[in-house]
């Protein structure tokens, strides 16, 4: 990597921060290539299976008559949820002036953008005729009839579309001054690309003054999205009349779950990132402890929601509701439901112990279990409610086929591949903000 002259004459600590952070963007090592190769293969498998599904029709997925929403919708909700803590960390913690945000915000913003890209694919994968997905977009069809704005699926288009656009702008705006730094350390075509991406940023008082106001407002605009987007996603379910879905608690319950799973994913991504790139100086154990506390807190909210859901079903004396929740905890999918409670409610309780919060290996294991648990939560909510609704005549069950499993794994491949490309091509930490706090 070119160690440019620009950084060396300046105060050492600033130049050192730049060098340490930009070192990540050097030549890829074996571990990176192996990881990216593995992720690319997974993504390719997912892509081939999707092509197969498009060719053969949705029959190759494991949908049965009562269960018409399953793994694909689970993945959609899971990935949208993952996106949430990115906004929480970058926008909400910015408004609260939480300093530890600087260690995670770039990684979290990147995660938000990539998770939404993956999430956006799943409603399309779930369609029988994926090529007519544009029917969902608000445009008048040949007969000048517009989309039905009373449908939660259209709300999704607006909510997720807005979320993606705003997150992308926020992600990019945060990087503008960093691109100006990065171009200084690079040569040739990469220098030119970073220069163009920096838009000609020089750091004048005029630029900083407007930039500070822009950043504040983008954070303020993004903050309500943390609550609104997953609320809208939850209404995809809550607007129906299905027992187990039709409940007012869904919006806050889903929002808490989204932040919970997203925080876990940030921890899953940043622990290996910090180790691989030697960023211990900038992302400290204290920072991880703070974020572990957010995870613990949201876990308690999620647990409380489980208690309220079951409590209502038990005390409400509505036979359909009672049966739906009896089936959820003791029916065909009971092992998944128990695993969900173990991962989401019990394991995170150990984070009350300070020593465990500060143990990186342990934290990584907890975060992986939470990711598994939150995926299972969505699966359990979606599938058990559909499989076992009002009329025993239509009760059924469901198990995913290799196509669904493969496409789901492919989505993880796509997410991790995008993430690895991000690590090699964009500054992984906010250089200017770190310099500000030095």
């Amino acid at each position, binding site marked *: 990597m070119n160690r440019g002259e*620009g950084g060396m004459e300046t105060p050492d600590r600033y130049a050192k921060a730049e060098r340490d952070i930009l070192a990540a963007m050097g030549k890829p090592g074996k571990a990176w290539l192996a990881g990216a190769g593995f992720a690319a293969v997974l993504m390719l498998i997912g892509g081939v299976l999707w092509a197969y599904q498009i060719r053969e029709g949705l029959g190759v997925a494991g949908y049965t008559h009562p269960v018409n929403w399953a793994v694909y919708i689970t993945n959609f909700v899971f990935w949208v949820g993952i996106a949430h803590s990115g906004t929480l960390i970058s926008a909400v913690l910015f408004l609260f002036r939480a300093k530890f945000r600087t260690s995670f915000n770039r990684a979290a913003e990147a995660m938000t953008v990539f998770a939404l890209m993956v999430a956006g694919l799943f409603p399309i994968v779930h369609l029988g005729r994926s090529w007519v997905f544009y029917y969902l977009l608000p445009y008048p069809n040949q007969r000048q009839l517009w989309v039905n704005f009373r449908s939660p699926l259209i709300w999704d288009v607006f909510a997720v579309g807005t979320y993606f656009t705003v997150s992308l702008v926020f992600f990019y705006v945060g990087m503008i001054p960093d691109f100006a730094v990065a171009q200084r350390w690079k040569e040739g075509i990469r220098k030119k690309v970073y220069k163009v991406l920096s838009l000609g940023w020089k750091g004048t008082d005029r630029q900083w003054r*407007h930039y*500070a106001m822009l950043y504040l407002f983008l954070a303020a605009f993004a903050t309500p999205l943390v609550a609104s987007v997953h609320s809208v996603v939850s209404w995809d379910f809550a607007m129906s009349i299905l027992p187990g879905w039709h409940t007012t608690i869904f919006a806050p319950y889903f929002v808490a779950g989204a932040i919970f799973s997203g925080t876990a994913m940030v921890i899953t991504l940043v622990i290996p990132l910090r180790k691989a790139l030697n960023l211990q100086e900038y992302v400290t154990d204290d920072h991880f402890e703070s974020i572990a506390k957010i995870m613990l807190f949201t876990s308690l909210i999620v647990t409380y929601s489980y208690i309220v859901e079951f409590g209502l079903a038990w005390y409400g004396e509505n036979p359909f509701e009672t049966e739906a929740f009896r089936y959820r905890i003791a029916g065909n999918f009971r092992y998944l439901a128990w695993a969900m409670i173990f991962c989401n409610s019990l394991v995170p309780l150990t984070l009350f112990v300070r020593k465990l919060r500060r143990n990186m290996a342990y934290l990584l294991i907890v975060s992986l279990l939470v990711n598994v648990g939150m995926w299972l939560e969505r699966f359990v909510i979606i599938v058990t409610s559909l499989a076992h609704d009002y009329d025993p005549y239509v009760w059924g069950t469901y198990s995913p086929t290799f196509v669904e499993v493969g496409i789901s794994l492919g989505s993880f491949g796509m997410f991790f591949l995008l993430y690895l490309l991000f690590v090699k091509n964009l500054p992984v930490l906010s250089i200017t903000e770190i310099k500000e706090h030095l």
Partner: protein
Amino acid sequence: MPGKMVYKDKDAFLEGLRTAVRDGVPPDRIRTITPFDVPEAERILSRGRSKVRFFALLGAASGTAAGFAFTILTSLSWPLIVGGKPIVSIPPFIIIAFALTILFGALSTFAGFLLLAGLPSPRAIRSDEDHGNRFVILVEEEEPR
């Protein structure tokens, strides 16, 4: 007294800025270049608050208006009752208007920033002038734009 002063350290830079203002250099003629945002410098130069905030307000307000206008007018252009809901169903339309408020507000704020900060600047992209991590005070002869 046009000129350029370069500092390696934030505190020295702020001191230099204070001295310049005390010596009677009109703050309008002072330009600074810093590696990160220094809000104290803004206060010394008594710059007003950025006008980017008006773009935020304008964008957000137009988003709310557009959200309601879009949903109501398109529903009325072919009044079709779906699911027994009224043609103009305000509660679901609020969700659309809310999303567009945020979307238009964020995009308009970003556009306002680009406009006010003079970005993207092709001249600056081509130029190789670079002050690295130093803090620079520039005093211009003419009042800068």
